């Protein structure tokens, strides 16, 4: 048995991966789950091309567009929050994180309006396979936004309690990574559901 003299990490000087291994297992498993449903989506599309060529036009593109803009903006907020912490501005971090949560909540509100709009236009989970998949993917994404809001909320709380400083902010980076993942997935979902099908 040997006692380690250093921390046992063989890190190269200029590499830095945000977050930690556990966060990345989480993020990658979530992305795999979405990947799985992307594949299902494409397979069903090959089997029923007619549903998928007419489906996207029936959805509310404006809602999709607004939510894309919101998520991009929220990613920008989060990135600013991390940047603020790195330069030691705790108050700024808290404001940026609060803005992120606000954007997330606004996203949920738009989703709610969109679902109501859908019901008024006779689009339900069982209208056809395209809409079933649209609902599954969009609803699943909405859930991840809700989880993301909790995660960012937790980071905000930690930040408020002074848990992070310019050197040590792994938790904040982890939360930010999770939030950006939500954004990345939506960037794929937006054209897939609302435009191309």
């Amino acid at each position, binding site marked *: 048995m040997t006692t380690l003299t250093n921390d046992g990490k063989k890190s190269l000087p200029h590499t*830095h*991966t945000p977050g930690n291994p556990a966060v990345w297992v989480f993020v990658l498993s979530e992305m795999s789950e979405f*990947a799985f449903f992307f594949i299902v989506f*494409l397979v069903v599309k*090959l089997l029923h091309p007619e549903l998928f060529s007419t489906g996207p036009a029936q959805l509310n*593109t404006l809602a999709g567009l607004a939510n*894309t803009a919101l998520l991009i903006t929220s990613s920008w907020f989060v990135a600013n929050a991390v940047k603020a912490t790195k330069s030691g501005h705790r108050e700024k971090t808290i404001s940026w994180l609060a803005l992120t949560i606000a954007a997330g909540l606004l996203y949920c509100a738009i989703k709610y309006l969109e679902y109501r709009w859908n019901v008024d236009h006779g689009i339900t989970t069982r209208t056809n396979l395209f809409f079933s998949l649209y609902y599954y993917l969009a609803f699943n994404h909405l859930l991840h936004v809700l989880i993301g809001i909790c995660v960012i909320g937790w980071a905000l709380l930690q930040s408020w309690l002074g848990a992070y400083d310019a050197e040590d902010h792994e938790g904040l980076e982890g939360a930010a990574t999770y939030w950006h993942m939500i954004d990345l997935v939506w*960037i794929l979902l937006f054209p897939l559901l609302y*435009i191309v099908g």
Partner: protein
Amino acid sequence: MRHLTQNSLNRTWLILIGLTLLTTAIAESSALTTVSVTAITLIVIVKGRLIIREYMDMKSANPVLYWALIAYMVLFSTAMPLSFLFG
């Protein structure tokens, strides 16, 4: 404006919003063609890459993770024109 674009986070935000509007404009202007779907796909890849590099700050991260993220975006966005062509 000048102050806004000097900051790379802000600049990225402007580009991303612009690209999103462009996507919608392409989609709404006419019926989808192979060319327009390919354009939309390229925009998705550019957007994904910007977020991964600038916002997630993966430029100097573990290269396996970095390329896995990039590959994810490329793979699933190119499935769109492919399924459009052969679907």
